[in-house]
């Protein structure tokens, strides 16, 4: 454990002594996290703001991007009242350089690309534009880039989610939220499969499976796998490989009882039994009035009140994200 921590500090300490090397390492690739979950109001933006702040407080350079063009408010949560530039400028081709859209936040190490709208009616960026955006995001010189996704299962939202190194699904212990989390997961699952698989017949099969009332009786992804295998064994193998790489992270927000905590385990089990995917239960955040007050005060809770109950949980999740090697070592130790 100490060895890993030391390994970590090598990179950070390089930052102060040999800037070119450090920036070269950094320029290599930020870790891109996307936070979605289907339902509005489950705390996606709250989570992104606080995880971004917690990572920044740990000394990592962080860029938070609001890609929720229809309900942008990440800037408010981060205490940037009226950002002078917006992702909307990039979407509308007014600005090609993502770096020029970056604004400072009151927090050290934390920068923001807001999504405030200059005018109404700007739609989701088209596919090609999204690709450009994601390319730029993956090259951005920061340790972490956090994407705050909008609600729903629009292809743009799913694309951001799938393009991220880690996709976080936020849910709260309510039927509507859990249902939407599954719709989100299902949409992400099928989209990923469609992209991973090449032949037209198989793609058509997946499109059929996405229709819940399909005639082939494909009810679960496992049924789908069976169908694909009988149609094209090579594609079947690709399907399984793609499945194994797909590891959404679950965060349960607004936890009030220990029963609520168990929801994460239950959803993880459903992911395995129904979707055949290994989701990771990243953690939970309890219900805390201080969280609401921090939103009103327009400051991330982990910054304004790091010892508040919810802040402790948020910080814990951020530590897990900050040290992926540790997490993956844990995974290896915990492997069945």
């Amino acid at each position, binding site marked *: 454990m100490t060895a890993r921590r030391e390994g970590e500090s090598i990179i950070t300490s390089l930052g102060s002594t040999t800037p070119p090397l450090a920036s070269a390492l950094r320029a290599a690739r930020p870790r891109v996290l996307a936070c979605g979950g289907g339902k509005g109001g489950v705390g996606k933006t709250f989570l992104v703001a606080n995880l971004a702040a917690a990572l920044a407080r740990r000394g990592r350079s962080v860029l938070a991007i609001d890609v929720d063009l229809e309900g942008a408010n990440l800037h408010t949560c981060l205490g940037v009242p009226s950002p002078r530039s917006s992702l909307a400028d990039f979407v509308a081709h007014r600005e090609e350089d993502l770096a020029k859209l970056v604004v400072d936040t009151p927090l050290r190490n934390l920068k923001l690309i807001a999504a405030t709208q200059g005018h109404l009616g700007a739609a989701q960026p088209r596919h090609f534009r999204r690709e450009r955006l994601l390319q730029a995001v993956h090259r951005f010189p920061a340790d972490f880039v956090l994407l705050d996704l909008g609600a729903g299962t629009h292809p743009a939202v799913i694309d951001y989610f799938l393009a991220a190194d880690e996709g976080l699904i936020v849910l709260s212990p309510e039927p509507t939220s859990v249902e939407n989390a599954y719709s989100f997961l299902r949409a992400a699952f099928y989209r990923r499969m469609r992209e991973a698989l090449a032949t037209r017949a198989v793609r058509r099969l997946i499109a059929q499976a996405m229709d819940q009332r399909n005639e082939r009786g494909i009810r679960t992804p*496992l049924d789908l796998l069976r169908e694909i295998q009988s149609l094209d064994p090579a594609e079947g193998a690709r399907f399984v490989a793609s499945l194994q790489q797909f590891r959404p992270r679950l965060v349960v927000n607004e936890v009030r009882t220990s029963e609520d905590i168990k929801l994460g385990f239950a959803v993880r089990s459903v992911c395995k039994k129904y979707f*055949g995917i290994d989701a990771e239960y990243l953690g939970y955040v309890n219900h805390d009035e201080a969280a609401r007050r921090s939103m009103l005060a327009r400051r991330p809770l982990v910054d304004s009140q790091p010892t508040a109950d919810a802040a402790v949980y948020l910080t814990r999740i951020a530590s897990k994200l900050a040290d992926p090697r540790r997490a993956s070592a844990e995974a290896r130790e915990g492997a069945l």
Partner: protein
Amino acid sequence: MKPLAEQNHYELLEISREADAAEIERAYRLAQGAYASDSLATYSVFAEEDAVSLRERIELAYDVLSDPERRRAYDGSLAGEPAPPPSGGLAFELERERPARSPQKPLAPLAVAAFDDLEAEAGSSVYDGARLRRARMRRGIELEQIAQVTKINPTYLRFLEEERFDDLPAAVYVRGFVGAYARCCGLDLAAVVPSYMERFETGRIARKRGRPGQPL
């Protein structure tokens, strides 16, 4: 990736072939909760008949694996089956609880995340009400369960967590409450009780001083 129908008892409970009795118990209780008929996590995914059959199979798996004799026989029947390949890895594994030294057995923890050591407060020796609650919730224990075991009024237990010092009885009782609470949650009494009591005493004094006119 095995279809549910072909999964063996271990795969069904999502445990390894080497799982000990405590792990089996925990996995069973989690699965039982996850696939209960009113479960938030499953009602929108599994059709009712699938859910029923899953529940039956979970019960059967537990019946077999929790009985050493039947488990041995079952393991023998699996002998020909290749052990499952290591899965992608579950970074969020159930913690193996340390055996409790205290005479009063802690309530069996249900699901404890392995990020105890990642806690921001791990280095802190202060046990406040919120920290007690975090420790309790992480262990999957409800206040009512503690109340049942300790016979302490659940309202007082809640006041402990909320640090409503003025609504709690005399210190000597509170000391007993905190101790019982800590034992139930498998916490270290020697660390928890003095720390909490210090907060309790200073909190009460401060409040009394802050309210002139109130008898000391």
